[in-house]
């Protein structure tokens, strides 16, 4: 079953805007990022004291965690004991249609808040620390340091590649049983990590979901930050980092007074609960400020962003009708059988390789332009952040289709999570669902076009800021901006083309 793609009129409008923006940026490539106004919710008149009370008390978070764990158990029970029909089972519908698609959209509005109520972490913490929320006994975990070679987000990137392979290749999104197995496997990994390594190594280094959220949260207009930076600057005790007798230390080794980017913040609330000055709360800032001004380039983070960009587009590619033709043709050539997983894996590898090779090649051109003033690796890492808005906005635009078209019938699944006595959707029902999304098609198309344009605009703003830091010479800035703009506009164009195509729905 397929649904229509983005109409040509919208695509033309976005293309025109992209062209105009490109022309404008080529004229004035440099840009000095100025400080932008931010507002701490704790300072808002009327609701400030309420915000401080909420973030410093663990009860609300505990209640939300209990609710999420309830859903988690329901998903496992439904997956193992319920119907194998994916559209009738809570395991597949809640996990892939509602949570996995909605989560990416929610990151924009709530930053990394999901991690604070993550059921895997909640269950692992309760099992290992044997406390609902207070600081656990130090002897409950072996507290080993994570080996140096694993102290990066490479493990999370490989986990993300593996998850995508399972999702699109093996097809766990349409298999309730496999969905439940995956949920349990992640629980075992989370618990093992917490029992063996210090603090929450799984959240910081291994969790592909958390690191994806962390990366995207760099663009979010909300973040957990100090209410008053001066208080943090004068703080000598650093309860946020060390914790207190009652409250856990920061699970990802962050010091609130020095935090500049959301990448590793899990919004767990330990800092806001342990701060003796109640100086930590949610802060509002303009979209993308962090990526434009504060995010420091890192080699592993650059590769994670490249991975996000290629894998989000790959999600779109696999839902195109031509994808299976390619996989089948390749299977004939290499004599692949059954589910054609080898052919799929090769296709996935090539799909990931193309944007990487293109980016690496264009950075090579930029490197030659800059001369010996900077290293290739630094240039690669510095400019990789420009791709983040493109990955994020396409991810949201793509997920809107899943969320709004496949979520019909959610109430039926909630009231009958195991799908007992239900039948598969008939062709007519499936057609009705896909053609009657929760929001009107025109609204979806408008949002998708707006997202693509916003992504390009934000990417261009980040690029201008980055190249200004790389060189003060306006000619060199202009020269560097050409290959980078070519890459950004090519990706935008490709993602637009993907959105234009009739897309095959999962269930």
């Amino acid at each position: 079953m397929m649904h229509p793609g983005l109409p040509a009129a919208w695509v033309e409008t976005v293309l025109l805007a992209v062209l105009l923006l490109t022309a404008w940026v080529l004229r004035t490539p440099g840009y000095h990022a100025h400080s932008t106004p931010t507002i701490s919710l704790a300072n808002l008149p009327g609701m400030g004291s309420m915000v401080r009370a909420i973030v410093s008390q663990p009860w609300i978070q505990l209640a939300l965690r209990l609710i999420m764990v309830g859903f988690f158990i329901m998903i496992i029970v439904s997956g193992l004991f319920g119907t194998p029909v994916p559209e009738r089972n809570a395991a597949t519908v809640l996990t892939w249609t509602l949570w996995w698609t909605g989560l990416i959209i929610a990151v924009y509005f709530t930053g990394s808040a999901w991690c604070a109520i993550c059921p895997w972490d909640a269950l692992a913490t309760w099992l290992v620390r044997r406390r609902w929320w207070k600081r656990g006994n130090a002897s409950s975990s072996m507290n080993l340091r994570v080996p140096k070679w694993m102290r990066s987000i490479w493990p999370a990137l490989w986990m993300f590649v593996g998850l995508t392979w399972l999702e699109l290749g093996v097809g766990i999104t349409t298999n309730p049983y496999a969905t439940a197995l995956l949920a349990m496997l992640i629980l075992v990994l989370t618990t093992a990590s917490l029992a063996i390594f210090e603090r929450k190594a799984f959240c910081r280094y291994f969790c592909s979901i958390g690191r994806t959220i962390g990366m995207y949260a760099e663009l979010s207009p909300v973040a957990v930050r100090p209410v008053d930076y001066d208080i943090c600057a004068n703080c000598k005790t650093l309860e946020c980092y060390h914790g207190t007798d009652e409250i856990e230390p920061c699970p990802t080794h962050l010091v609130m007074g020095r935090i500049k980017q959301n990448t590793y913040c899990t919004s767990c609330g330990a800092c806001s609960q342990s701060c003796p000055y109640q100086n930590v709360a949610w802060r509002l800032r303009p979209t993308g400020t962090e990526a434009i001004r504060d995010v420091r380039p890192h080699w592993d983070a650059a590769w994670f962003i490249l991975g996000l960009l290629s894998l989000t587009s790959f999600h779109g590619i696999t839902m195109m009708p031509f994808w299976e033709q390619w996989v089948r043709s390749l299977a004939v050539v290499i004599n692949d059988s059954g589910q054609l997983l080898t052919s799929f894996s090769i296709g996935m590898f090539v799909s990931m390789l193309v944007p990487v090779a293109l980016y690496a090649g264009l950075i090579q051109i930029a490197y030659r332009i800059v001369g010996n003033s900077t290293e290739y690796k630094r240039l690669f890492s510095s400019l990789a952040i420009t791709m983040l808005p493109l990955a994020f906005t396409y991810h949201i635009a793509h997920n809107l289709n899943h969320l709004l078209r496949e979520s019909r019938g959610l109430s039926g699944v909630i009231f009958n999570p195991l799908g007992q006595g239900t039948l598969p959707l008939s062709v007519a029902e499936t057609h009705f669902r896909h053609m009657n999304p929760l929001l009107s098609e025109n609204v979806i198309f408008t949002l998708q076009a707006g997202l693509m344009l916003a992504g390009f605009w934000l990417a261009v703003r980040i690029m201008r800021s980055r190249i200004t830091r790389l060189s003060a010479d306006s000619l060199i800035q202009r020269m560097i901006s050409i290959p980078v703009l070519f890459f950004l506009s090519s990706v935008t164009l490709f993602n637009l083309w993907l959105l234009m195509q009739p897309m095959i729905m999962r269930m």
Partner: protein
Amino acid sequence: MGKVILKIAGFFILSIGIAWALPAYAHHVLGRPAYSLNEDSNTPPSMEIETQVGKYYVSMMAFPAFPKPGQRGRVNLYAVRIDNGESYDGSVTFTAREDSWFGSEQEVLGTQPPDDRVYRQGFAFHKAGNYIVRAEFESDGEPYQVDFPVRIGSPVPVGPIGLTVGSLAVLLIGVNIFQRRRLQRIRASQYHAGKSSSKEST
């Protein structure tokens, strides 16, 4: 600069033209079960799997999709060559075995000739569980095997739950024992260190 902008604009226009020219086709996910209501009945659903094996494109269908223990069901198989679209016309042998991690006995369900190019095999499983029905045939001297999962009744999947709970229990108990021994070692070394320092002071 104007030339650069013109070239970028040209690239966009060319690319969008190519995009519009590409046709769209229907889609089916290979190797994954699809549940549907079909012409056999408007109530019990059937399960279909389409797959590609060697030179053949194979389509298998089980009806009903979720038979109960003792209930009669049917598997249909249809195979066409990928290169010329000709349907397979030899015989197909159907076997069944339990889908378990540990090997189970395989039972021959029957060998079927084509019936209007479709191979139809009846079955009835008396015990609830997950089974694999395998279709085997030979073409151009090469053996072909296609597996098809059939779920009878509602088997209780204690395996994954047991494995998860068992792994967690082993892990937590193991860490606990390790930590206790480590603490004992630390206390013992502190005790000995304290003893030797008190001797030195006296």
